[in-house]
């Protein structure tokens, strides 16, 4: 398996709080992608961070990547109830065509 310590986690927070989700992976990857899956829909990419980047920001999102520890994090600031979803990280294990998902984090943001 490409994945280390990332079983499905569940987080429940209040709207307006900040949250950070983590994942770790076993083998080298050229990029880490973070996807969000809302109820009844397929996953959608939120942010992509390359192996030569340490941090990437997009709006309220911030992704980090530590290749030495093979871990990545996704932070959301000022969460909204509409951020309620499952968040997955995904790596490519140097594959040109394939990506491999971690188990994900179920985030519930209460209004």
């Amino acid at each position, binding site marked *: 398996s490409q994945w280390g310590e990332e079983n*499905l986690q569940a987080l429940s927070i209040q709207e307006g709080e900040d949250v950070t989700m983590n994942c770790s992976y076993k083998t080298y990857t050229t990029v880490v992608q973070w996807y969000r899956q809302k109820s009844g*829909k*397929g*996953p959608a*990419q939120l942010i992509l961070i390359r192996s030569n980047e340490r941090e990437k920001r997009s709006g309220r999102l911030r992704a980090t990547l530590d290749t030495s520890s093979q871990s990545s994090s996704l932070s959301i600031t000022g969460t909204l109830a509409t951020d309620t979803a499952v968040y*997955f990280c995904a790596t490519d294990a140097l594959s040109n*065509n*394939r990506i*491999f998902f971690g*188990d994900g984090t179920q985030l519930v943001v209460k209004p």
Partner: protein
Amino acid sequence: DTTVKQNPRYKLARVGKPVNLICSQTMNHDTMYWYQKKPNQAPKLLLFYYDKILNREADTFEKFQSSRPNNSFCSLYIGSAGLEYSAMYLCASSNRGYAEQFFGPGTRLTVL
């Protein structure tokens, strides 16, 4: 337009019967994927088509078949459904060399 469509959205099948799921995309992507997702688990790649070349994952090689009659359409075929096939099936597409995959809403398959 970044739409990937899947039909049907819900499918009920009997044990031992065949199942055929359909996916379409209008982005002219060269690669189409099928994933299986069970509750509280990660999406699991089953197979993908790069152009006309089918690649099946080793651990699901004999369980699933697929066809891609043209660039826009791709099907997932289960010859004899078992209870363990009950899951959400996600279709995605992308272009080779680009990491982002675009997903459809999924087909929820229930095998009874």
